[in-house]
């Protein structure tokens, strides 16, 4: 039967990457010099699984590469090799190579053969000596096999003397099955020796007292026969000798044949053929399934969910069903009562009515709770602990501190904090960048630290926790902090701010997120070339999150990332423009206010601005952006929603403000096409569709229209 193995690939890759994660984190905890056998065992097991899977699913290069790593680990495990820093580092780098190999295999991409070869060379270099011995042994073995194979070629048959030990049956092996296997190679005849059969009273039914002389004619190789007896070679005396040509009958067995011989022989062998004929394997179902080729996916399309989460949802659905039947009952009762009332209502039926209504409203309250809990439960399916991202950090800190000659201790807390899978996948890189940045620019070298009266070892704290509907991630270092003079000077030099600008400390700190800004005196290969922080900010904003920094010179910095729990649900402010309702993401809104006509300034040649307390903010008329007619040209008493766009407030004029509510985001792109001013759509409680604003897009369209003269200043 042929089975399409690619259907298992996704699961294989998923568990392999998980295994690599385990190998990495365990390697990092492994103490050089005194390797903990348990830890090495765990690493070994992970490597071993990858090797086995890779071999089975046809990724031979991965399997071979892992084999070398495994050999090294095996020697560490049995103590024949010391756990050296070099070996551990080599293994860590091999994990990286392996990851790349697996990724290439998964994505059907070209692989960097040179990189693999180089790593191979290093591992083999470490193994040298012990590996040479092993390989020569293997070579010897294969030579022996080849010679034996040659001998058996062309022979017409074999005589097999098979004398099982009495306990052969104990491990579940059965001579009948072996004979059956032999009979597939050719014609098999057997002669049974019952001479050691015990008297009935002393017979142990579980013991085997028989032995056989078998004659097999055909072209089977000796190795084929040995393979049949492979599992019992230590549980029996076995001799296999070639038959003289064409004279099988001449070669009568030398054992003494008992009278019972014939019957036992036929009993033992004749069912063989019958069973064999009956056993064609029905593989239809498998073949049909295999015919459906799974499509290639480059992004991880599956998700592993803890059984407790699934159970919880099932439980919640159960409660929902109970609520439903409760409401059903109340509805029915109401109907019956209404009928009774129509026949001539009395105070009794009124009282009953009130009872039923109470039950009904209770039921509805319960339904609301059920729905909310079910929503939470389903959302939790997509949630993963943030340790998925945090687990990359120990390795990063380990490698970087060596590279930078710094001593750094990493403290991680809140790893179990859960976060949406998509958010998780997109927050990894920005986090890595922030950690790199803290190590490179934040924490000082040991001598500088000592001179400043700080402990030699710097500390990097990674922390995650839930706050309201958000996830907060903190990256805190006890390094030098942000040098405000330097940042200010640099910002002036780069034209980000002007010499006369009066900035608060916090504003200066946030200048590091400006595009193209870098204060590092030397561009290092660790933190890159100053294109980092603005990219970090952009990525976080894209996820609907924000990043802020607090810093004290000489004491250190804290970067705080605030992320939405999920991308599927959004807290929104409902607004009306024209006849339509729209949703503005709450996370973007700073405040909403009623316009005071006297605070509006129309800057000549530019747009209108509004004096909000001490600053001037641009005004965007939503009606103008959507090409609707103005209904209140001078904006008197209009409603303005102040939103944050790229760190600066912008006032958007809307017709009316409605309530705030949670909305489920539906993609516009998959259902319609991309619309610049909208990030998605949702369905409101009354069944109408409302579009969700992309405030950045609104600003862009506003600017375009302004430049084209569509909107007059």
């Amino acid at each position: 039967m042929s089975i399409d193995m690619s259907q298992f690939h996704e699961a294989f890759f998923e568990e392999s990457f998980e295994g690599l994660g385990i190998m990495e984190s365990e390697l990092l905890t492994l103490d050089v010099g005194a390797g903990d056998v348990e830890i090495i065992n765990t690493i070994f097991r992970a490597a071993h699984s990858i090797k086995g899977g890779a071999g089975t699913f046809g990724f031979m290069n991965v399997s071979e590469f892992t084999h070398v790593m495994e050999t090294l680990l095996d020697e560490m495990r049995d103590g024949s090799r010391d756990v050296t820093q070099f070996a551990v580092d080599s293994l860590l780098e091999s994990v990286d190579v392996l990851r790349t190999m697996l990724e290439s295999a998964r994505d059907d991409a070209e692989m960097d053969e040179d990189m693999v070869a180089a790593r191979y060379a290093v591992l083999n270099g470490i193994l040298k000596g012990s590996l040479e011995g092993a390989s020569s042994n293997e070579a010897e073995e294969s030579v022996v096999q080849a010679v034996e194979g040659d001998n058996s070629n062309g022979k017409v048959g074999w005589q097999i003397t098979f004398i099982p030990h009495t306990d052969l049956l104990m491990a579940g092996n059965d001579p009948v099955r072996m004979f059956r296997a032999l009979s597939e190679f050719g014609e098999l005849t057997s002669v049974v020796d019952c001479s050691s059969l015990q008297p009935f009273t002393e017979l142990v039914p579980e013991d085997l007292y028989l032995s056989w002389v078998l004659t097999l004619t055909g072209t089977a190789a000796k190795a084929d026969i040995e393979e049949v007896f492979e599992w019992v070679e230590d549980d029996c005396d076995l001799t296999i000798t070639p038959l003289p040509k064409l004279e099988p009958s001449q070669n009568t067995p030398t054992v003494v044949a008992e009278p019972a011989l014939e019957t036992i022989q036929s009993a033992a062998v004749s069912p063989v053929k019958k069973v064999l004929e009956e056993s064609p394997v029905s593989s239809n179902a498998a073949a049909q399934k295999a015919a459906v080729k799974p499509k290639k996916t480059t992004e991880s399309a599956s998700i592993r969910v803890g059984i407790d989460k699934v159970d919880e949802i099932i439980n919640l659905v159960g409660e929902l069903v109970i609520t439903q039947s409760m409401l059903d009952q109340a509805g029915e009762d109401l109907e019956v009562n209404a009928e009774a009332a129509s026949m001539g209502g009395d105070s009794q039926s009124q009282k009953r009515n009130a009872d039923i209504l109470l039950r009904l409203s209770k039921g509805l309250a319960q339904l609301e709770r059920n729905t909310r809990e079910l929503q939470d439960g389903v959302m939790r399916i997509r949630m993963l602990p943030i340790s998925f991202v945090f687990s990359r950090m120990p390795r990063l800190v380990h490698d970087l501190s060596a590279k930078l000659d710094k001593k750094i201790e990493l403290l991680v807390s809140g790893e179990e904090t859960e976060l949406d899978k998509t958010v998780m996948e997109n927050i990894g890189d920005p986090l890595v960048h922030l950690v790199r940045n803290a190590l490179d620019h934040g924490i000082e070298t040991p001598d500088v630290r000592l001179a400043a009266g700080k402990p030699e070892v710097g500390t990097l704290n990674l922390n995650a926790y839930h706050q309201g509907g958000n996830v907060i991630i903190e990256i805190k270092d006890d390094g030098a902090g942000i040098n405000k003079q330097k940042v200010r000077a640099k910002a002036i030099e780069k034209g980000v701010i002007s010499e006369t600008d009066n900035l608060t400390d916090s504003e200066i700190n946030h200048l590091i997120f400006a595009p193209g800004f870098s204060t590092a005196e030397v561009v290092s290969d660790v933190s890159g070339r100053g294109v980092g922080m603005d990219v970090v900010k952009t990525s976080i904003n894209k996820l609907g999150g924000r990043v802020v920094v607090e810093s004290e010179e000489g004491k250190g910095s804290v970067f705080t990332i605030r992320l939405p729990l999920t991308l599927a649900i959004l807290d929104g402010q409902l607004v009306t423009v024209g006849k339509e309702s729209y949703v503005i993401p709450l996370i973007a809104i700073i405040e909403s206010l009623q316009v005071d006509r006297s605070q509006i300034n129309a800057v000549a040649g530019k747009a209108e601005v509004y004096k909000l307390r001490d600053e001037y903010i641009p005004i965007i008329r939503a009606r103008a952006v959507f090409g609707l007619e103005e209904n209140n040209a001078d904006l008197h008493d209009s409603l303005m929603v102040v939103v944050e766009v790229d760190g600066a407030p912008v006032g958007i004029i809307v017709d009316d403000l409605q309530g705030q509510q949670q909305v489920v985001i539906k993609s516009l792109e998959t259902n319609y096409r991309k619309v610049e001013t909208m990030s998605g759509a949702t369905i409101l409680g009354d069944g109408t569709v409302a579009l969700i604003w992309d405030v950045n897009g609104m600003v862009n369209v506003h600017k375009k229209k302004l430049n084209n003269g569509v909107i007059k200043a």
Partner: protein
Amino acid sequence: MARILVVDDSASMRQMVAFTLKGAGHETIEASDGVEALTSAKTGRFDLVITDVNMPNMDGITLTKELRSLPNYRFTPILTLTTESSAEKKMAGKQAGATGWLVKPFNPDQLLATAKKVLG
């Protein structure tokens, strides 16, 4: 057909083995380590146990020993799946009471052939 207990900590291997066996008409129950397997074995009857060797919690060798000590599993065929082709590992399985072994990597046909060897 036969009722087979498939034990492997690797989900992909387990699925492959189970899928292949199911395709051949067998009924399979899956367990992800020795402890889980032992629980399943105690609560049900199996005609064959196929187990990985290297597993967390309880490895395949210990599982084999434990199974052999149960009255219902004294003669049940137990196959170990091993990547190590070294005689030492195979013998460890044998000594624990395993019927035989299958060396990884193997393809579905080899698996079915091996299962047939002990199931008939």
